[in-house]
């Protein structure tokens, strides 16, 4: 049977779709400008500014960017490895901690939770943190410096704990009666039931690892260990510095990378994750709805 749509609903839908379309276009246009900017000849940009449809088509910027292919490829490798490894390991540790804290029969769970929470109130500051990692832990110029700091966050653990609290105790108990040990319960029952929570936190973590350049900036000195975002930022920063007064003190032979090169590098760096995003996002949204329905 067809439900009759009211006029107001139609009007609402028309307005809604129009606004959403405009917003979508607004979000999309900058990306389009980056892509078209990356294939515009350098001179045209200087003379006439960025345009959506360039008069001439040129792949010079990409040729220049890929003249150092090795570095981009290795940066990709580092970033992908970090994102996958860091997220998997981080999820495992976060969920284990969350699970333990959510179990009612763990006597000191509140104290431990407070202990973890407590660390979010204070921060040693940048310099002590740097000293700890470089002088005490000796992780300068090591992948560990990129992997470990974002691995566990107190906030994620608490989020996970609260999520797992919503799983009924009865499930744990019944499994216990069937003879399952704690780890089996966690692995076989709690984890599958926590997919929505894992998806949320996992996405946060993955984005964090993918977008991180600060750690590499501080700790990594070998070029082959640069992650992608840092490499990209480095190119932009070099250009920015060379356009300021500091450049007056430097050798005039240095030439900042061209506008088009910046655009090309941006496309190279963001392209894959944009293509990947819809797939991950579908899973992510599904996960969220499961959680919502189950309550």
């Amino acid at each position, binding site marked *: 049977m067809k439900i009759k749509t009211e006029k107001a609903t139609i009007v609402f839908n028309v307005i809604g779709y129009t606004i959403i379309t405009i917003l979508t276009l607004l979000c999309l246009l900058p990306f389009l400008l980056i892509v078209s900017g990356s294939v515009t000849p350098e001179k045209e940009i*200087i003379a006439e500014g960025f345009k959506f449809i360039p008069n001439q088509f040129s792949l010079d910027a990409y040729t220049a960017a890929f003249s150092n292919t090795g570095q981009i490829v290795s940066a990709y490798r580092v970033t992908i490895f970090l994102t996958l490894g860091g997220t998997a390991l981080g999820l495992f540790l976060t969920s284990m901690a969350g699970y333990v804290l959510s179990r009612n029969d763990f006597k000191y769970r509140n104290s431990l939770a407070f202990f973890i929470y407590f660390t979010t109130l204070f921060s040693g500051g940048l310099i002590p943190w740097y*000293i700890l990692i470089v002088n005490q832990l000796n992780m300068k110029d090591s992948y560990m410096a990129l992997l470990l700091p974002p691995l566990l966050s107190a906030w994620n653990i608490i989020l996970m704990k609260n999520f797992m609290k919503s799983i009924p105790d009865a499930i744990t108990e019944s499994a216990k009666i069937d003879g399952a040990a704690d780890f089996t319960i966690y692995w076989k029952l709690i984890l599958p039931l926590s997919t929505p929570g894992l998806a949320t936190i996992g996405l946060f973590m993955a984005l964090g690892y993918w977008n991180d350049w600060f750690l590499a900036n501080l700790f990594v000195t070998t070029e082959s260990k640069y992650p992608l975002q840092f490499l990209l930022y480095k190119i932009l920063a070099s250009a920015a510095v060379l356009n300021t007064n500091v450049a007056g003190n*430097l050798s005039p032979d240095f030439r900042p990378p061209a506008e088009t090169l910046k655009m090309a590098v941006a496309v190279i760096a963001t392209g894959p994750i944009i293509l990947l995003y819809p797939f991950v996002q579908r899973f992510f949204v599904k996960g969220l709805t499961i959680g919502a329905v189950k309550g």
Partner: protein
Amino acid sequence: MRQDKMKYFSWFVAILMVAALLSGCAKSSNEPLEESPTTTSSDSAEGSEGKLDTSKKVELVWYLLGDANKDQKEVMAELNKMLEKDLNTTVKLNFTTWTDWQTKYNLLLASGEKIDMIFASTWSDYYKFANQGAFLPLGDLLPTYAPETWKNVPKQDWDEATVKGNILAVPATYPEYTPDGLVYREDWRNELGLPEIKDLDSIEAYLDGVKKAKNVTPINGKAYNEVFTLFKAYNDYQQIGGDSGVIAASSYDNPRDIIAYPFTPEFEAWVKRMKTWADKGFWNSDTLSSQVEAGDAIKVGTGAVYWRNAPGAGGYIVDMEKNNPEIKLGYFPFTRFHNYVMPNLSVNNAMAIPKNAANPERSLMVLDKLRNDPKYYDLLSYGIEGKHYSIAEDGKYIVTPPANLKDTKNFVPYGIASWGFRLESMERVKQASGWSGFDALLQEFKSESKPNIFAPVLLDYAPVKSQQAAVNAVIQQYGLPLMMGLVPDVDKAIETYRKQLEAAGVNDVLAYVKEQAYAYYDEKGMK
């Protein structure tokens, strides 16, 4: 009951953590201080025996400010081969890159990381770090471990590197003049029969002529540098200790007459004139938010004037000759307003040793080698002969790409941030990228050079931090549009600007700068 116990427990844990935190802090900040004297004393004892002991193999960690080159690995491998043979040492050369480099540089020095040598410079806060004791005093080490350098560097240069009686850096021996100036299209000036540029009126006439006849915006892009440096040079206002905002000495001959320039009649006259310039369309009304370099506009024929310092102008002009030979450029250095120029301080580029260095002696030995042995100097500065360069027929300068190279299209030139250990006598590249007009300019500068008395004044603004921040905000909000003539009513804008500056506490900042500057002048025995 249980609840209570738990509460106590969590408090206990909390207190424990605070205690751990505090003790951890204390330890890490004390450690480096205690360590450094012991290392130096034991090692200088070694030196006093007379013969330099290199029996222990050492790996040094060096830091340069800037980016590494694509072939850095290859060059370092070559260099380390030589170093290992000569000094039983290898160097691990690290680069800060330009990403957030101030933070990184701060951390490197503040954390007490083991670094044997680092680039230091006035523009990376050499005097601030030196005052905080971040660098190792080199006075006792230099004669023993870097004898050549100790002999070669002029006394004046050592003096400029001296803070609180200690030499804390080895300055580059590369006298540089980087006065501001304007690059302009000389071919248009000739074509339009405009007067030769030699003062403010001729600049105005040129801008006006170009604007009318060619119908282009003369400064087509960011124009603040052009106008502000012109303002300073025209009125001979000298900023103190780097960028001191609106505070300046009123002229070179009156270093003690320190003023806030927005309160002078000269400033009033200037911004009125700039208002007419802006109205005539010498720059765009969006110039303050523009991200376009005026120099890029010249390349495509839509601009005529660009601010550059002298060596930068050389690079720009040479580049233009190569890529757009139809455009002819001229250069007008602002030094011609008052006919003198101040050289950069020697510590504008230098190498220093952080106080926690593991092997300061060996580091100095390597630096000595680097500065005085052409084999080392050429390798690290210019790369590998035959691959990155070849020696020109005159035997002094280099040719890039190398003469025998077939595949010149894919040639990537070699160059690194070698500013910290440059020597004029060792250089194989002409200053200002070999611009033909630069030699004459350099002669002019050398003949009218006066000592730089403003840059070494150390200002950290610590006592007037909030006032300084407020003043800077006022400059951004009111000062910039006024300077660019982008206000409807100049008189009213000046009044507002002055009022806002006073409210922000400009007089406190002025008093602070005066106090510090006078202290420096007294110390140097200046009137």
